[in-house]
């Protein structure tokens, strides 16, 4: 038996974040994405290289979904915590941003003679913003809320749930209950978040006109940057020892305790991080899509997020990104191309993916790659 050398073993733990090929892939996709808004800005409509604005808007939205999917994959793929309620974090982040945007709109309207309150508030007969809206006119504070509100909720909820050792479907179902309850709460007008209609009709962000192509491009690039940053961070995280402890917790939580790790903290960290990322995704989503309402908290929406991850390949980081893109892309395409039959196509897709691609799309890609590599090796040999 040959004993592995120290350096061999160290090399094993200090793998590069991504393989060079992966880096190249990510970089090229990112570059293409980054160019799209430029093509939109620089080339006039009708030019061969012109990218229509709605395509940019669409991809911006997909990237927000991808970010949420990535966040979900961190907890589901690596910590085995299936959340059927991640929509709540997405929505809370979105609402935090929406509050800022709504106030900006209301303030602009006030200059034109409006009451300075959003319509739904004046309608309720309120004369001033309720306390929980304080300071939301400041962008920085809104950003803080984007991180803090989902993070805090996740922390508190997670702390009690993980402390009670709630696991598996029990956890999944209470997250579902949580988001469902929140949705009902936000449906109410009195809650002060615009009821079913939610927030819409945003005009400006940070003094910039939201409908201006330049602002849109900036938001797009910001989303792309956050997405890439998160991908790298997530990769670093799951490759670290922390990541390994996490997967150990996923596979054998009790055993982990006996070697001296307390799973509570490990789960709580990733859970809170995931919620925050999801909140950021929501915050990026709102100005680009132009609406946030309680339907984002509907259980079905959270289930859809899970499905993006599963379709792409859970526990793979790249998978959720692809899954979110593919599922939503198909949905966009189908709902126009075959508005009455698209559910069959989408439903069938989900069934087929689970049966034939247990590791999702990424799993399939890996299989194909492996086969090709093997073929190559064989031809070399």
């Amino acid at each position, binding site marked *: 038996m*040959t004993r592995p050398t120290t350096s061999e073993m*160290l090399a094993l733990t200090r793998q590069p974040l991504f393989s060079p090929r992966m880096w190249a892939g990510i970089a090229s996709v990112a570059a293409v994405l980054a160019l799209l808004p430029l093509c939109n800005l620089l080339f006039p409509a009708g030019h061969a290289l012109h990218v229509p604005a709605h395509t940019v808007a669409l991809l911006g939205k997909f990237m927000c979904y991808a970010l949420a999917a990535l966040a979900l994959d961190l907890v589901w793929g690596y910590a085995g915590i299936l959340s059927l309620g991640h929509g709540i974090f997405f929505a809370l982040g979105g609402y935090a941003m929406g509050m800022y945007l709504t106030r900006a709109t209301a303030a602009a309207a006030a200059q034109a003679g409006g009451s300075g309150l959003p319509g739904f508030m004046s309608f309720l007969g309120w004369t001033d913003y309720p306390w929980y809206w304080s300071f939301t006119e400041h962008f920085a504070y809104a950003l803080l809320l984007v991180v803090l509100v989902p993070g805090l909720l996740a922390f508190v909820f997670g702390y009690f749930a993980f402390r009670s050792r709630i696991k598996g479907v029990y956890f999944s179902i209470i997250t579902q209950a949580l988001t469902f309850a929140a949705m009902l709460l936000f449906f109410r007008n009195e809650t002060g978040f615009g009821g079913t209609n939610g927030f819409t009709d945003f005009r400006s962000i940070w003094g910039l006109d939201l409908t201006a192509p330049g602002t849109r491009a900036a938001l797009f690039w910001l989303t792309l940057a956050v997405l890439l940053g998160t991908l790298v961070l997530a990769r670093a995280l799951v490759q670290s020892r922390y990541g390994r402890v996490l997967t150990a917790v996923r*596979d054998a939580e009790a*055993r*982990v305790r*006996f*070697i001296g790790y307390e799973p509570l903290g490990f789960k709580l960290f990733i859970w809170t991080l995931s919620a925050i990322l999801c909140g950021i995704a929501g915050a990026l989503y709102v100005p680009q899509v132009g609406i946030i309402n309680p339907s984002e908290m509907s259980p079905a929406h959270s289930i859809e997020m899970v499905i993006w991850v599963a379709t792409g390949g859970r526990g793979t980081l790249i998978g959720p990104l692809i899954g979110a893109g593919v599922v939503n892309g198909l949905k966009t395409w189908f709902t126009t191309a075959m508005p009455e039959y698209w559910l069959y196509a989408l439903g069938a897709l989900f069934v087929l993916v689970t049966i034939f691609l247990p590791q999702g799309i990424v799993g399939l890609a890996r299989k194909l790659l492996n086969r090709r590599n093997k073929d190559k090796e064989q031809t070399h040999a």
Partner: protein
Amino acid sequence: MRDDGPTTLIMNPEHELGGHASYGRAASSEVDTRHGVILYLDSVNVVFDGFKAINNLTLDIGVGELRCIIGPNGAGKTTMMDIITGKTRPSSGTAFFGQNIDLTTLSETQIANAGIGRKFQRPTVFEAHSVFENLELAMKADKRVWPVLGARLRGEQADRIGEVLETVGLSAQFQRTAGLLSHGQKQWLEIGMLLMQEPRLLLLDEPVAGMTDAETERTGELFNSLKGKHSLMVVEHDMDFVAQIAQQGKVTVLCEGSVLAEGTMEQVQNDERVIEVYLGR
């Protein structure tokens, strides 16, 4: 082929017991073993829906001692380990680690960090991780979230993993996924993990089940080499193995949840009651 055998495991001074403050946040104070005893169990009882699994069990283990525990199936040996490691709470009685650490109030994690390591009766390893990662995870270190987040494997730590890999004979498999190991290999891996933890007290539940005779013997040598520096509690049904490691040390026979007999291997082997309930004729 290895020629230095288990001796590679002899710890370098840095790993010496008590050399470091305990890492885990659990043990606020170092375990106090001034009386020379590392584990006290005093009139412990465990009842499972009316069934008395442990019945007024009193037992103590000295520092550096290797104690063999034998006893019929269902005598309560595994349950006793469950109590020591915090998996099961006793209905009554006390369990102390050293003089100062009350095990009945601590969580599994705290107990592990206080310095008690355990190998389970059925080998339980992290199946999705490689052999190497299993050992790395078990390695003695600060196991709280923030330190782990920043942790990187240092050269000497890798060396140590290499040593243990060799000791348990899994060097060639170090990159393999643990779930794919055979039963016996998993047993070895778990022993390796236990060694990585560098606990003061090792609890070993049937460590040689599923090993070949040759391997059993090697395991015996390994345990003998640990004796003195660590305290060990070994549960086994393989009498030859028990005889090999017990040597002149004490062997405790549990039966129906309490101590039936105690003494050297020779004494208990000739005890009529032990033959009656356990060894058979």
